[in-house]
Structure formats: structure tokens, C-alpha cells
């Protein structure tokens, strides 16, 4: 085929890509995968725009964004990494907000952690206790701090196994490799979860650990895209809030929209 004959097609193709594309690409921390997919569907249904999500560990997403990844917005698992994008001049300060607060739950298939969690942790009569890596994952850091503050850490230290993310910690418990695990409440209450309504769980009182604030920010790239703005506004609407709560997250006061 001659170059000339494909050229018109190519031109149309390229202009259609660079022109007003009614879509946005957003990087999202793994723990929020399910929730934001459902919000995304609602958003697409209402607006006709398209929203694409890239899921991954927050630190990896941050490294990618810092190195020019084509994301219009960034939903982290903590506040630190989204804040860092602002410091780097990539994220926009005025767009920053806390979109959800993660809740920590202790889960077990066999142990009655719903009745006497502290006694079970104190006895340490289980093979392994899965937590997310405290060095990299906020859920893991909170779990470790909780154990230390309750004076339980020494007793269970040798039973601890670290998942790379809260998803891995969950996997260790769900596959029966660890009898106990600190997981995200969102992983337990999801009706599609492999452990849904199996086993026992205990939701840690919010007063026992620092809130797991998850922050979101629009990037320089996304600021030029009206669909990104529309999606971020949608995130603050009651419809989205309802989905977020249903999946076991709290909403901080600041995340509530004034539009309600």
C-alpha cells in the first residue's frame, strides 16, 4: 500500500485523537479499585463521557506520574504521595481533597475475632498474621502502630507476614495461608469478595488509630481536560458518597460537597 493512500485516514485518525476526547485517564490506588469502578460506571451512564482507570500500588503510581505518565488525576492510598505531586509541580493544590477514609478490620476464617479480638491477638495461637507492608502501605502502618499501642506487637511479631499491599495481605488470609489478617473493611464487605459472609471480622474503632485519609489530586495534564473536572465533581456528589460508604469507607467532612 502506498503511503499516499493511507495518509488521509491517518490524518483523520490523528486529529480525532488530539481533538476533544471525551475521556479521562485516572490513576487509582489498588484498595479503591472496586469502589471507583462502580462510581465510574455511574458517571459514564450519566454523562456519556468515558473514564479509564489505571490501578496500582500508590508508590508505583507516584513514580510513574513523576516520570510523565499520562494520568489526568491521581487517587492515592494516603495523603503523602498525592501531596508530593503538588510539591513536584505536577498536581494542582486547589484540586486536592480527601475522597475517602479507609477502615481497618481484623479478619479470620476460624478465630472468633468478632467476639474477643484482643484476647486472640494476645494469645497468639495462630500460625500467621498478615498485614500490609508498614513501610509502604498506610493500612499496614496503622495496623502495626495499633499493635504496638495495645502492647500486642512483641507477642505477634514472629507471626507477622507482610503483603506488598493491602490486596496481598488480604490474599494471604483468603487463600488460607494466614489465619488472621488486618485487611481493609472494603475487602470484607464487598459482595464479590471471596470471603464475603465467610469467617469473622472486627472493625477497629476509629479512635484506636489515625484516620487513613486517602487523597486525590488533578494533574497539570488533567486540568486541561473538562471530563477530569467533571469526574472529580461527580466524586463529591451524594451518589458517589453513597457508593463509597457502601464499600466500607468513611467520608471526612471536608469531602462533602456543598451542592447537596
Amino acid at each position: 500500500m502506498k503511503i499516499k493512500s493511507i495518509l488521509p485516514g491517518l490524518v483523520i485518525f490523528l486529529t480525532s485523537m488530539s481533538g476533544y476526547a471525551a475521556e479521562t485517564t485516572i490513576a487509582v490506588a489498588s484498595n479503591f479499585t472496586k469502589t471507583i469502578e462502580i462510581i465510574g460506571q455511574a458517571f459514564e451512564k450519566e454523562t456519556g463521557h468515558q473514564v479509564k482507570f489505571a490501578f496500582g500500588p500508590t508508590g508505583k503510581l507516584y513514580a510513574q506520574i513523576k516520570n510523565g505518565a499520562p494520568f489526568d488525576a491521581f487517587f492515592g492510598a494516603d495523603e503523602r504521595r498525592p501531596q508530593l505531586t503538588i510539591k513536584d509541580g505536577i498536581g494542582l493544590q486547589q484540586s486536592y481533597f480527601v475522597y475517602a477514609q479507609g477502615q481497618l478490620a481484623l479478619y479470620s476464617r476460624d478465630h472468633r475475632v468478632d467476639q474477643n479480638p484482643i484476647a486472640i491477638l494476645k494469645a497468639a495461637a495462630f500460625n500467621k498474621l498478615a498485614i500490609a507492608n508498614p513501610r509502604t502501605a498506610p493500612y499496614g502502618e496503622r495496623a502495626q502502630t495499633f499493635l504496638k499501642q495495645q502492647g500486642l506487637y512483641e507477642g505477634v511479631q514472629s507471626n507477622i507476614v507482610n503483603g506488598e499491599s493491602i490486596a496481598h495481605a488480604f490474599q494471604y488470609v483468603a487463600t488460607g495461608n494466614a489465619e488472621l489478617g488486618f485487611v481493609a473493611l472494603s475487602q470484607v464487605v464487598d459482595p464479590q469478595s471471596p470471603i464475603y459472609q465467610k469467617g469473622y471480622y472486627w472493625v477497629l474503632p476509629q479512635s484506636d488509630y489515625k484516620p487513613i485519609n486517602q487523597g486525590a489530586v488533578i494533574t497539570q495534564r488533567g486540568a486541561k481536560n473538562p471530563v477530569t473536572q467533571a469526574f472529580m465533581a461527580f466524586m463529591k456528589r451524594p451518589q458517589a458518597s453513597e457508593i463509597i460508604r457502601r464499600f466500607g469507607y468513611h467520608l471526612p467532612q471536608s469531602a462533602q460537597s456543598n451542592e447537596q
Partner: protein
Amino acid sequence: MMLFGSEINLQPVWLTLEVATYTMVILMLIGTPLAWKMAKMDSSTKVLLEALVALPLVLPPTVLGFYLLIVMNPNGPITEFLRLFGFEGQLTFSKTGLVIGSVFYSLPFAVQPLMHAFESIPSRLLDAAATLRANALDRFFTIVVPLSQRGFLVAATLTFAHTVGEFGVVLMVGGNIPGETRMVSIDIFDHVESLEYTQAHILSALMLMFSFLVLLLVYSLNRRFGVKVG
């Protein structure tokens, strides 16, 4: 330890080398008879085995890791099997479990070069030895092994190197326990995740140099022994 002006914990490096050494030794012991059998097989069974052995090459390591997590769990078949021999404890989250996972993961890198080396030995040599009353074991060690030097060296180097570079399987079945299952690739991942880019750079540079040296070794072995075997 201080390296390039930065504090670096080398424990994951030593652990990685340890796991890779065990894996290599076990794979040479398992891979040699398996490759020999396969080299002597008729086509249909052989094709089936070849496809099975090559699976870890195409499967994403996370898939392999996920299956290993299931079959190695405390009530899984592998653990039950090892209990027959007095094994106590748990496979997942242990060095033993990592070695078992790595053996599956690097199997094709042991079997394929060995099988090709064995196949290239002319059967008339073995027939001639047999007529001189050399038994099967004699024939293997006096004819096959010397003629397959290159295959053995390549298999050993590749299985070792492939284990050093493994990530997905370790991530899934390891549990990131310092000194037990925290291998270099995971450590680098953690450094990147926690934004400790200097440490990540240093460890990554070490890995890069190491991998390059290993490949240099493999290719120079290929050149040196190539003439002798082929």
C-alpha cells in the same frame, strides 16, 4: 553497609544468592534425569512434556505465584506430602517455600538446554560404548556428561540468574520477611514504593551489573564450548 555514600542493607542480596544456589543445585539434580528421559522419548509424550515444562516461560509469574499460594498453603497437597517425611511448619512465607517456588519457576531454564545438549549426542557413540559393555550409568558419566558440558554450564547459570531476578513468585508466596523471604527484587520494589530512590538505584545497578556479567558468561561459554559439542 555503606555503598556509594549511602547506607545499604545487603541482607536481601545474600538471601537471594542463597535461594538461587539451592534452586540451581536442586534443578540440576531433577532437571538432568528429566531432560535425559525427554531427549530419548518418542514424539507425542515428549511434546506434551515439553509444553508442560515450558509453561513457566509464558505464564505471568503472578499466576504461578497465586497457584503456588494455593497448593502450598498449610492444608495444601505439597505441605501434606512433605509431612509424610516429617516436615513441620509452613511452606508459604518460608525460605523452603521460596526454593520450591523457584524450582517450578526456573524449570525450563534447566531442562531445555540440557535436553538440547543430550539430543545432539550421536546415538552411535552410546551404541558403540554399549557393545564394549559399558552400562547405562557408565555411558552417561563417561560420554554424555563430558559431551554436554556446555548444556550443563548454560543450565546452571541460567537457573541461578533467573532465580536472582524473580519477582512475581516471591511477591506472592514470600511475605517479605527480613532474612527469610525478602529478596533483592522485593527490596528494590519497597525502596521505590517508599520513595527511597537512592537505595533503589544502588541495588538496581548491582542487579544490572550482575545480570550483564552472567549473560556475558553464558555467551562466552556458548562460544568456547560450541565447537566441541556441535
